[in-house]
């Protein structure tokens, strides 16, 4: 009975636990509640993935109302993979959060932090699972509103302005999406994504649908921080509490990419999106610009969190690059990189959290000689950094390899060169940190710095472990990504 209701429970259980968390006055209880729920969500995500793997796409009618009238939950392979990413990152960051939150947040905020975190988790899961265009908007707002709060809780006052900037841009994006959904509804008379895609061909050649497409694309691009709409991201990730940066960098923008995939392939269809609207060319240009410019900017950052944030913009460029090819190989490479980058960035931001806990700063010039004091943390950073660069035997290499292959198959050899060049840029900015930490003489106060606590190190290494495992044996995850891409494009070709 519960198993057949898994799609609904996947979202409802974190939703219900959020108000419960608010009621728990003791921060430790709130943390325990959030921890248990996070791991439960991960268990459910694995079960769900297994169900989708064996049974194929799952459809669940909420309230038992038939599809165009009620709201449908629809999970295919791509969705199941996204849920797994969100659940993994959530489950891993929660044990890490306890020390980090104690250190970076005022005590009176800790209880509310866990509530907002659970709400954010709910929102992100809800976006992925839903098959209804308007329901997507509602859960998008749940995740956005809670992430504005999470970011604003950061230790410096600039967290407030970063959150405000994100709120303004995020709301503009959400309103654009709402306008797009409204125009789509106006022309098709339905909100169910499958239903819209069936009714769309009749009206696809109207100016209204074209405008709807444009608005949805721009709105989602703000949410996923596509260059040049990324300006909210560096500040938000720099000034948020470290665990929030890790969680958001690994999930929020990724879910944005997923929404874009849903709209392009499931809703509008490959034919309309790429052949009629030529969105592929535009996305490819923006992705190339994102990769080059953001990587270059990252090199000149002294604050490592900000550097990683710019690197995120570049990595989103890679993912979008894969999607812009609009082939099964390209999209599956994009999805593979989506998974890998979530793991890499999560681990790197968590390593920064460890450093901030002990050092009180994440500026490169304060990190001289840090590797001797915090060997495990810096080793995690190096392992993650290598993966970010795309060195063989790491996860980053696998996804870049598939990306290059996909580009070459379509005859875009300059893209392969671009990926190589940008990997060199990544090498430079990662090297700056490594150089400071390993090859500079330690500063005067450095001997006081101790290694980070195990409760923070183990989660960091868990994500690094996933990275290294994928680097050695990418069979399963590649298979899932390919199936996901095939299911997305398969729907689009129908």
């Amino acid at each position, binding site marked *: 009975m519960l198993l057949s209701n898994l799609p609904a429970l996947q979202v409802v259980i974190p939703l219900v636990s959020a108000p419960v968390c608010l009621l728990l006055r003791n921060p430790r209880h709130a943390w325990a509640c959030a921890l248990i729920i996070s791991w439960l969500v991960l268990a459910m995500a694995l079960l769900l993935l297994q169900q989708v793997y064996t049974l194929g796409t799952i459809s669940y009618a909420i309230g038992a109302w038939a599809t165009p009238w009620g709201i449908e939950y629809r999970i295919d392979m791509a969705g199941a993979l996204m849920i797994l990413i969100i659940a993994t990152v959530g489950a891993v960051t929660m044990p890490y959060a306890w020390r980090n939150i104690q250190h970076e947040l005022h005590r009176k905020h800790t209880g509310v932090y866990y509530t907002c975190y659970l709400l954010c988790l709910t929102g992100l899961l809800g976006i992925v699972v839903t098959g209804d265009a308007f329901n997507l908007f509602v859960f998008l*707002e749940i995740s956005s509103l809670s992430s*504005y709060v999470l970011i604003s809780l950061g230790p410096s006052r*600039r967290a407030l*302005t970063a959150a*405000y900037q994100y709120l*303004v841009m995020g709301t*503009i994006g959400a*309103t654009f999406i709402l306008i797009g959904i*409204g125009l789509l509804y106006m022309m098709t008379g339905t909100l169910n994504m499958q239903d819209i895609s069936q009714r769309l061909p009749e009206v696809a050649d109207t100016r209204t649908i074209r405008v709807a497409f444009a608005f949805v694309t721009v709105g989602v691009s703000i949410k996923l921080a596509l260059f040049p709409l990324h300006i909210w991201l560096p500040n938000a990730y720099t000034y948020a509490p470290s665990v929030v940066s890790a969680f958001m960098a690994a999930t929020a923008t990724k879910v944005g990419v997923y929404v874009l995939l849903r709209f392009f392939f499931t809703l509008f269809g490959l034919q309309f999106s790429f052949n009629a609207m030529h969105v592929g060319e535009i996305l490819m240009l923006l992705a190339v610009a994102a990769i080059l410019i953001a990587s270059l900017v990252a090199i000149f950052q002294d604050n490592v969190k900000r550097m990683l944030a710019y690197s995120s913009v570049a990595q989103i460029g890679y993912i979008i690059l894969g999607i812009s090819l609009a082939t099964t190989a390209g999209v599956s490479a994009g999805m593979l990189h989506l998974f890998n980058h979530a793991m890499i960035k999560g681990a790197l931001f968590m390593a920064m959290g460890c450093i901030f806990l002990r050092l009180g700063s994440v500026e490169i010039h304060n990190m001289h000689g840090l590797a001797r004091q915090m060997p495990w943390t810096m080793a995690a950073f190096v392992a993650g950094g290598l993966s970010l660069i795309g060195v063989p035997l790491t996860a980053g290499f696998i996804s870049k390899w598939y990306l290059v292959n996909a580009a070459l198959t379509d005859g875009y050899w300059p893209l392969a060169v671009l990926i190589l060049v940008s990997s060199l840029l990544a090498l430079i900015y990662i090297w700056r940190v490594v150089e400071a930490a390993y090859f500079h003489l330690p500063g005067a106060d450095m001997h006081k710095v101790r290694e980070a606590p195990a409760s923070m190190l183990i989660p960091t290494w868990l994500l690094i472990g996933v990275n290294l495992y994928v680097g050695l044996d990418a069979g399963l995850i590649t298979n899932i990504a390919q199936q996901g891409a095939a299911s997305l494009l398969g729907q689009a070709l129908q």
Partner: protein
Amino acid sequence: MTELLGHYNYWIVIILMMTGFYIVIARPNLVKKVIGLFIFQTSVFILFISMAKIEGGTAPIIEEGLSVYSNPLPHVLILTAIVVSLATTALGLALVVRIQEAYGTSNEDDIHVQDEED
């Protein structure tokens, strides 16, 4: 001419939407930006409600003797969206209050100057 009469409602609504949008992106005052967002969103609501209207229809509350009702679905969507807009406004204004306390100003340009000095 019918083209013009058929869409005048939407055109005015678009002007309203752009008024709000303009306030958000052009004005440096943080309170006014939130107000701009509010205007922008409210105008989008009017767009949705306009599309629900049927000529000669009545409110979608079923009664004896009536047969033409306006479309209830956009009304439901907008009820949700109004609540979302309130949530955004409340959070945005709460952030402005905190920014005012932390920076002593709620003008974007002044905040940038202070951030540069840090």
